[in-house]
């Protein structure tokens, strides 16, 4: 029983940063912007959150700082790609490289020290139910927030008029422009939302998951989040499945390492990354479905009057 509870609890924790970042990127890609800077924005969020938590001791302030750090970097991306029409792929890669370097620079003094970590909630009665209480009602608040945000985004995109406009812009930005929708402004907002989510995801890593600051501590999770969005074929429900899958493999690889199986640990650490992508590719290999859900304008610049 314990192993099952352990599994579930650690899956939830490991999947949350992916879920936060991927939910943000999903919104960005739905309006057809491809921001490859997720990894960089997560690192900025991680160090901003950790540093503020360490200096002030306030977790709400730390989370806000992380959100702003992610948004600041995404604002730079939006300005370069949406206003100045720079290439999105190159700009996104540059953003990640910048985020890694800058976070390492700022974080040099924070390596190996501690900061307050996110507490787990405790709801009287509910959290005390054996097994069920542990599985359902005893995580930190961000885990619930991540799930709620995913559900909200799914509902928003499919059921609201604003969500419809966003999908329309992703499908045919020229037509949306002709109808009078502000393509650039809406893309800015989506990119900023993506930055905020990536920042929050980074803070989750440094304040709850690890919880420590170490250089490059995101360790490729930003890239997995990007892959999740694509291989989930831009459908929120499959993001959740993908993120949980990653969490489960993360747990298994640690578990196997703990058993002392004679497999190189570097290989075991790689398993969740490769495994998640392979499984997602296999389940979403229906190219027709991908075509149907893929924002048709993904990565393409928009200029009014063209």
């Amino acid at each position, binding site marked *: 029983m314990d192993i099952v509870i352990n599994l579930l609890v650690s899956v939830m924790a490991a999947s949350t940063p992916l879920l936060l970042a991927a939910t943000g990127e999903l919104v960005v890609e739905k309006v057809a912007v491809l921001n490859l800077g997720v990894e960089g924005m997560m690192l900025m969020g991680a160090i901003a959150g950790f540093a503020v938590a360490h200096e002030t001791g306030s977790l709400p302030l730390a989370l806000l700082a992380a959100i702003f750090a992610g948004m600041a970097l995404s604002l730079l991306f939006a300005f370069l790609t949406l206003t100045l029409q720079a290439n999105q792929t190159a700009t996104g890669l540059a953003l990640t490289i910048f985020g890694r370097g800058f976070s390492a620079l700022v974080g040099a003094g924070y390596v190996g020290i501690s900061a307050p970590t996110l507490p787990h909630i405790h709801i009287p009665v509910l959290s005390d139910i054996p097994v069920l209480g542990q599985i359902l009602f005893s995580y930190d608040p961000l885990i619930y927030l991540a799930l709620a945000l995913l559900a909200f985004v799914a509902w928003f995109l499919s059921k609201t*008029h604003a969500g*419809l406009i966003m*999908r329309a812009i992703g*499908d*045919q930005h020229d037509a949306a422009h002709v109808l009078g929708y502000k393509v650039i402004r809406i893309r800015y907002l989506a990119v900023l939302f993506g930055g905020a989510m990536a920042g929050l995801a980074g803070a989750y890593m440094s304040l709850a998951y690890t919880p420590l600051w170490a250089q490059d501590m995101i360790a490729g999770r930003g890239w997995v989040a990007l892959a999740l969005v694509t291989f989930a074929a831009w459908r929120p429900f499959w993001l959740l499945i993908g993120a949980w899958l990653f969490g489960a493999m993360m747990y298994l690889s640690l578990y196997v390492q703990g058993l002392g199986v004679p497999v190189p640990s570097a290989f075991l650490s790689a398993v969740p990354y490769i495994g998640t992508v392979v499984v997602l590719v296999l389940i979403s290999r229906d190219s*027709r479905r991908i075509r*149907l859900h893929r924002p048709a304008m993904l990565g393409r610049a928009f200029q009014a009057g063209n």
Partner: protein
Amino acid sequence: MTTPLLQLNGIVKQYPGCLANDHVDLTIDRHQIHALLGENGAGKSTLVKIIYGVVHPDEGSILWQGERVTITSPAHARRLGIGMVFQHFSLFEALTVAENIALGLDNPKDRVNLRDRIIKISASYGLPVDPDRTVHDLSVGERQRIEIVRCLLQNPKLLIMDEPTSVLTPKEAETLFTTLRRLASEGCSILYISHKLEEVRALCEAATIMRAGRVVAQCIPAEKTARELASIMISADLKPAHERRPAPTVGLPRLVLNKLTLRATSEFGTSLKSISLTVSGGEIVGIAGIAGNGQGELMDALSGEILAGKPETVLLDGKPAGHLGPYDRRKLGGCFVPEERNGHGAVTTMSLSENAYLSAHLRGALSKLGVINHRRTNTYAASIIERFDVRTTGPAALAKSLSGGNLQKFLVGREVMLDPAVLVISQPTWGVDAGAALAIHEAIIALAAAGAAVVIISQDLDEIFQLSDRIAVIAAGTLSEPVPVAEASLERIGLLMGGSHTASEAPAHV
């Protein structure tokens, strides 16, 4: 006299290198169906975009119901009561009909009970649309109905229609006219842009004719003949439509299709079912049909973009070519002009001479050891521009800078100049003005007279009847037996387009 609905005075719009509108005046009365005529590049589109608020004029005033207005955006135009149906539809393919319509409604109140109101309006105006279907599945005619319904939901006072019938069957066009006449009688004026002069004569009560950015005439179309209208448009007297050639001296078969069968590659495509056709040198075969009945797939199968498999299914000049891609088929003497000009027919971001090189280098000796001879390529492109009267700044102009009709002239000219053994051409004059269409038609006829086998895939029945020696109809992926044009009547072809030769199979997708 009542105040006119819309009055434009002295509208000027200058683009870099081109004066698109030069002091244009236009007056549209209430209840009026008003035609706007002109060649490609005459400035019609610019004028219409100004009325709809997409483009802002440099000079001039707009009076709407007698009051001076500055139309700042399409949303503003819609608030005033101006609706527009675009030639190239501004629809979102991945969304449903109802979602598409909701996007075009600015007032949230209009979106209440939208599905019911769509059904009601579409029923009362004879414009059947199903609000829950995805646009991707729909035919061109259905897509146009969505745009019209979207406009009607906002109770427009003026409806602008940009070449609405260029994609419709005669029957669909007739239905559209009935709708438009009813709208006009109910008080909605219509600004109607078209190249089809007979249509304008039958439908419109007034016409404004533009040429090179200026208004050159205003008239009542019913009082003029189509030829008079055309000659005002292009400023020269039109040569009489070319006499039908005497029965062609038919040569050897140059293009043969043997039971060509092709499974649809996308879920919205049409499968080709055992298509057989023989086209001989000197002959023009027209393939009529309603859009979306397999024309695109047939074009792909003929050009080699999609391989049908066995070599013998396609014979070019007697040589099996079914297994060959476009490059090798071109080497065998085939030339292909696809329907979609941008990105398919032409590389839009390249210059005209580069585009000319891309299709001609196999035969034109335009390169040596892989190095492009720029001088010769430019001369070649310039000769296409000259012979087909392509309006552009020269061979260095980017393909995307040309208007649709001009680019089409260039693309057709590019292939015709190669003197192909087999020419397959899809929608040769879609969106092309009367003068240019004549040039393209003459080139096609001359090519056939010189011994080439020509296949024309077109939805324009006038064109099919004008050019073809034999006419076949494609419906639901099946090709009818071609009939000589002398034995073909509009009714018979129309019946075939509805799929009556495939009575045992599912009806055509209309």
